[in-house]
């Protein structure tokens, strides 16, 4: 359960959009987190590892800076057990590579440039996520 926070949701979304635009304007790249992260693993197809590490480093440092800025720690509540974390993590990694993108690459960047693949992938993963939460919480009776 969480409260409706329209303003921070809109501001946070705009920041994510700015990040994507900056990356495109400066380097010509799509801000796809799964693409960056999956290519940190071998086999290496190009020499862009440092660039990918730079993005991931910024991403990891952001919550630290943010919590210093607001004066308390970031709200993160994970209710899943270790086994669920491992299964879900594997599915997210596998699905992102097979589907060619994740929430950022398809959901934000691809949708913004009206890529037909992204316009299919995004409702499919949002729908699958909604069905999964429905089954876990309302059919199986919750975690």
């Amino acid at each position, binding site marked *: 359960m969480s409260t409706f*926070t329209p303003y921070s949701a809109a501001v946070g979304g705009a920041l994510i959009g700015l990040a994507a635009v900056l990356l495109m304007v400066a380097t010509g790249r*799509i801000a796809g987190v799964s693409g960056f992260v999956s290519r940190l693993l071998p086999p290496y197809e190009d020499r862009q590892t440092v660039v990918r590490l730079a993005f991931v480093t910024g991403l990891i440092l952001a919550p630290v800076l943010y919590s210093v800025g607001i004066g308390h720690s970031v709200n993160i509540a994970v209710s899943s057990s270790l086994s669920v974390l491992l299964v879900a993590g594997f599915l997210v990694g596998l699905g992102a590579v097979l589907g060619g993108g994740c929430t950022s690459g398809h959901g934000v960047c691809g949708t913004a440039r009206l890529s037909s693949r992204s316009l299919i992938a995004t409702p499919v993963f949002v729908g699958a996520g909604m069905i999964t939460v429905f089954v876990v919480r309302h059919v199986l009776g919750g975690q």
Partner: protein
Amino acid sequence: MQVIATFVSGLLFGLGLCVSGLIDPAKVQSFLDVAGDWDPSLAITMASAVIVTGVGYRMAFARGKPLFAGTFQIPPVGKIDRRLVAGAAIFGIGWGLVGFCPGPAVAALSVSAEPAFWFVLAMLAGMAAGRWLVSQSAVAAQKPAVSANS
């Protein structure tokens, strides 16, 4: 310059995840829980991100080329096939189970270390498995792999 700009982009992206609450799996699951106590906040986050990106991309593409690189690297117009739909569905199931997707999970490594660590470790294994599957099917089809971009 590419490295610095990419670092700043990652930082802005991560701040956006924190401000919007997308970094919090509980909030993500509340967004996905349409039959329960639904919190539509993240729909606003997605809409806001897509609008800013859409407008910014148009301006970027109008310039002709990026500031610090030769060309825009836009994923080619690919086909809509079973792999795309199956991949997105598998991704969505994992996303719903915990409430983490790749960006928030990696960002959370610095603040919610243990659950994020296990999730990211398994995610890397899933990515490696996915890349292996993609390369196998590319070999079978005797043509270059469609890269898992974005």
